């Protein structure tokens, strides 16, 4: 999130699109409600069905799964055409005025530089996705925003294709409903008004998921809703600590603090550092990288040995989730650790996760209950005698049973203490990893291939690893060996260490570490600066220079984040800019993480193109109305032919998947909890009364739901909360399903993810869980 949960209370209009705040993040509705009670805020819900969030919304608009970009592009066009955008903000804080290479263009679904590749896909040469520069390499700009090659005019041209009628035909949202949403949300383009967009996996889990997020960012920038109280691009993370997992480099393509994973191409540290951005705050990256290496290898890391850069594994090829499973199927991956993850239920095409696990020599699963991944060998229909994989199940402690931190979606790193001892032999993840590492190190001490990275690793957390010691290593130390204040004190000469630069400061002293603070704010705008620690440097709203106008006057004087009083900056938050200089000096450079120092309405960083474009999901009932390219032209196709054809008569219905309040993720925590099973006992799918009439079922009947890949059997709920949508003039039905169930636990049921295709986003590889095609029929 750019902002944080409590800041919802400062919003004037909240739009929940691709998320289901009330059901999946129920506590946060407290702050939505506060905004409504105290500010008269309005809540908009855009969703394929009337959810529990929609139930309490002021305005509900239906949308066809997989068409977020068309919807958001429609809003962007509406704001541009009707002059509802925040002009001063756009001119000063974004790259709207920058001039783009005249060779840049967009034609029939493809941006310039495309080249045909395998499986009907494309690759891009991004040469034309660049700015015009002067002799010194400085980007040329037109502050009148009139030049046809300036970002603003290109944007207007690109988005003019998303008129209300077209958007309605693609998304299935009736034109009048769309206009209502557009008028209400774009009302926050007025200076002083705050519009907030809440989203989750209903935006991201598509082959075009990243561009969906980018569409939200573009809309929010146009309306001046980034960096202000009550605004923001707010991803509601689906797990309590998934933000922390990303921050600590758990994804395959990054190390800690969102530094890119070193790759084969980086022969040494200098080679890696050569990829450091040339401007903006990321120019400090070498300091963060060296400090990370020092945290990991301590005295062994010296300038002479490149700070042990060679010890890091280098990314050789795609190591994303779907790729790894493909390698597993091909016999390349021999063993797997699965910590608190249950791909046999939660992964795309989940039955294949169970199938491919048979190829492993060994599998280690650590979880609080025996999950489907650990039990794949005894799934219904399997013969354990024919499966050679050796499976180890490690009993894990629950979050209440261990000490450590949880980083919430608002980037707050909150310390948690152990509430009770773990049951039986269950142990904390830290205990398990500590013992495992020590055993591995002992084995390598006797020799092995390239033992140095294991033997030289700093691992001084005590006999039974102490979470506080780990926290201090992550926070980092200065040259004197004292805890470092924050990342501004880090150096690239090996004198400092820091496990994850963005966390630096969260535990910078032992007596009163910020992460353990619990002081509620009594006055202010809800920053609660002395309640835990938000990365970076306890900043609660990022890009907060944008909360004030170029002269430093807050757009909304009632909710000032930072303001210039004529002599100095006053603050309700930690400034995201140089606050020691007058406002004029930072008025054009509020986005310090971007090399342009401005927000990028146009960017070459994305795989699909500088502007988001609507492409249909991999499986779609209709041809793409926007152009000849049916689906994301640069998505990697792992399983050619594994999808139903466009407009398939065999699989005529749109399918989507989602969650319930009563259960959580793959259900392992909740399906073993009798009270929750009582509150939601069984797997079911949801359909509209019209589809129910067509296939002859009523609520409670059994149905078979089938995709190109698999079929499942479960009960059906017939509900008016789902309606067919008019897409390109034709009524299209939607089948909605929950993905919480599997064959283990106290409540067993079919796994919806068996039906999902293994295809992902071109930037992140996140799988397309939220839109595919299916058939549904009555059983018996």
């Amino acid at each position: 999130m750019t902002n944080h949960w409590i800041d919802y209370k400062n919003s004037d209009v909240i739009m929940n699109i691709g998320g289901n705040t009330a059901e999946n993040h129920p506590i946060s509705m407290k702050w939505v409600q506060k905004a409504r009670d105290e500010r008269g805020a309005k809540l908009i819900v855009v969703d394929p069905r009337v959810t529990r969030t929609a139930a309490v919304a002021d305005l509900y608009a239906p949308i066809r799964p997989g068409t977020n970009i068309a919807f958001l592009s429609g809003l962007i066009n509406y704001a541009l055409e009707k002059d509802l955008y925040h002009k001063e903000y756009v001119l000063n804080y974004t790259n709207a005025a920058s001039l783009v290479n005249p060779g840049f263009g967009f034609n029939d679904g493809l941006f310039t530089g495309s080249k045909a590749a395998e499986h009907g896909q494309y690759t891009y040469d991004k040469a034309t996705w660049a700015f015009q520069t002067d002799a010194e390499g400085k980007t040329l700009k037109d502050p009148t925003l009139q030049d046809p090659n300036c970002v603003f005019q290109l944007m207007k041209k690109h988005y003019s294709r998303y008129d209300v009628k077209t958007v309605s035909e693609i998304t299935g949202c009736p034109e009048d409903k769309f206009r209502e949403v557009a008028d209400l949300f774009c009302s926050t383009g007025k200076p002083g008004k705050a519009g907030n967009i809440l989203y989750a996996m209903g935006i991201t889990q598509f082959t075009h998921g990243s561009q969906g997020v980018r569409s939200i960012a573009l809309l929010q920038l146009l309306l001046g809703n980034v960096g202000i109280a009550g605004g923001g691009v707010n991803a509601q993370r689906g797990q309590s600590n998934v933000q922390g997992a990303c921050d600590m480099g758990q994804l395959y393509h990054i190390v800690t603090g969102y530094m890119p994973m070193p790759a084969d191409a980086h022969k040494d540290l200098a080679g890696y550092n050569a990829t450091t951005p040339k401007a903006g705050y990321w120019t400090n990256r070498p300091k963060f990288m060296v400090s990370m290496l020092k945290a990991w290898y301590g005295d062994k890391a010296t300038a002479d040995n490149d700070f042990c850069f060679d010890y890091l594994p280098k990314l050789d090829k795609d190591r994303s989730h779907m790729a790894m499973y493909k390698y597993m199927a091909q016999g390349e991956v021999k063993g797997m650790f699965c910590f608190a993850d249950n791909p046999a239920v939660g992964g795309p095409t989940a039955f294949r996760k169970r199938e491919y696990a048979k190829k492993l020599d060994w599998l280690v699963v650590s979880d609080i209950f025996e999950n489907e991944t650990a039990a794949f060998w005894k799934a219904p229909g399997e013969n354990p005698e024919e499966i050679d994989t050796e499976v180890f199940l490690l009993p894990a402690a629950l979050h209440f049973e261990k000490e450590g931190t949880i980083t919430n979606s608002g980037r707050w790193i909150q310390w948690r203490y152990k509430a009770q001892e773990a049951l039986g032999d269950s142990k904390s993840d830290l205990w398990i990893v500590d013992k495992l590492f020590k055993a591995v190190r002992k084995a390598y001490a006797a020799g092995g291939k390239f033992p140095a990275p294991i033997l030289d690793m700093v691992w001084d957390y005590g006999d039974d690893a102490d979470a506080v010691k780990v926290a201090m290593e992550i926070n980092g130390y200065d040259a004197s060996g004292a805890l470092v204040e924050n990342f501004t004190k880090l150096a690239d000469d090996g004198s400092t260490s820091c496990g994850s630069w963005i966390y630096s400061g969260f535990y910078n002293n032992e007596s009163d570490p910020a992460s353990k603070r619990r002081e509620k704010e009594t006055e202010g705008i809800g920053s609660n600066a002395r309640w835990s620690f938000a990365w970076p440097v306890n900043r609660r709203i990022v890009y907060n220079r944008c909360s004030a106008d170029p002269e430093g006057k807050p757009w909304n004087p009632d909710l000032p984040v930072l303001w210039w009083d004529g002599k100095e900056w006053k603050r309700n938050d930690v400034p995201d800019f140089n606050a020691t200089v007058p406002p004029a000096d930072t008025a054009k450079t509020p986005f310090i993480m971007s090399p342009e120092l401005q927000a990028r309405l146009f960017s070459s960083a994305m795989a699909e193109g500088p502007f988001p474009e609507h492409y249909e999901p991999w499986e779609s009932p209709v041809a793409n109305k926007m152009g000849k390219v049916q689906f994301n032209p640069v998505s990697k196709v792992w399983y050619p032919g594994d999808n139903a054809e466009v407009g398939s008569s065999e699989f005529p219905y749109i399918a989507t998947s989602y969650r319930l309040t009563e259960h959580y993720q793959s259900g392992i925590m909740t399906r073993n909890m009798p009270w929750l099973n009582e509150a939601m006992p069984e797997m079911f799918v949801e359909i509209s009364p019209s589809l129910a009439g067509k296939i002859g079922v009523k609520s409670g009947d059994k149905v078979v739901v089938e995709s190109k890949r698999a079929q499942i059997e479960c009960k059906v709920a017939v509900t008016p909360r789902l309606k067919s949508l008019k897409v390109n003039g034709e009524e299209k039905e939607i089948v909605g399903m929950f993905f919480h169930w599997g064959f283990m636990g106290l409540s067993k049921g079919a796994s919806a993810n068996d039906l999902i295709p293994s295809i992902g986003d071109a930037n992140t590889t996140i799988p397309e869980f939220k839109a595919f095609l299916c058939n549904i029929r009555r059983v018996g």
Partner: protein
Amino acid sequence: MTTKVRLIDVSKCVGCKGCQVSCKNWNQLPATPTEFSGSYESPPDLFPNTWSRVKFNEYADSDKVKFYFSFFSCMHCSDPACLNICPVKAISKDSLGSVKVDLGVCIGCGACKGVCPFNVPRIGNNKMFKCTLCSARVSNGMASACATACPTGAISLGDADEKIAEAEARVAELKKSGFANARIYGKDELGGLGVVYVLTDAPDKYGLPAEPKVSLADVYFWKVALGPVKTLATVGLAAGALSGWLQMRKEEIRKEQEGKE
């Protein structure tokens, strides 16, 4: 202590069932195996080990689909029919307004269930079970478990006067913002309930009786049915049988209440 009112503002409820599960947790009530009922509502009814639950209702109007949630539990009536009919005086109303059953005295006859206008009491193991308004928590200055768990403030507990004023203000607000059918429920019904609802639509749309009544036929039935019990009870408890014991009990209770205040 002044009488408490539990305020249920359905316009703020998101149907998360936190109240339902928290009630089970605090009171350590085991789960009842349930089956998919065709909607999100589960369990389908109150049981001896389910004292509160959320009702789910959905309606498709011409332009809008309505998805209604309402917390449902004992209404803690100001003049409880259950208390009046109980032949063994197992049911009492304390100074907080909580209608409570003394399980040591209760004989599980079910008369309370028969006369309750909201069909709340449940009999199991020859005893009656229902919501206690968390009187142990409330008398110690805490909110009820359901109110504590509620993320949006849809359930709250407070002094009767304050809560009723709050409800009235909220209804006015809702009417202003377009909920023409918004209303208060429980303020006047049966002389005032211990649970007051802010509704955005007619009570029956939320699964609440539009005009709750204590059925005289039910009372008469139970009076006759309980004849022998009554005799035994009165013989055992006091010298001299009294006629019209129902009225007498009412009078006794009134006096008991006065004595406490």
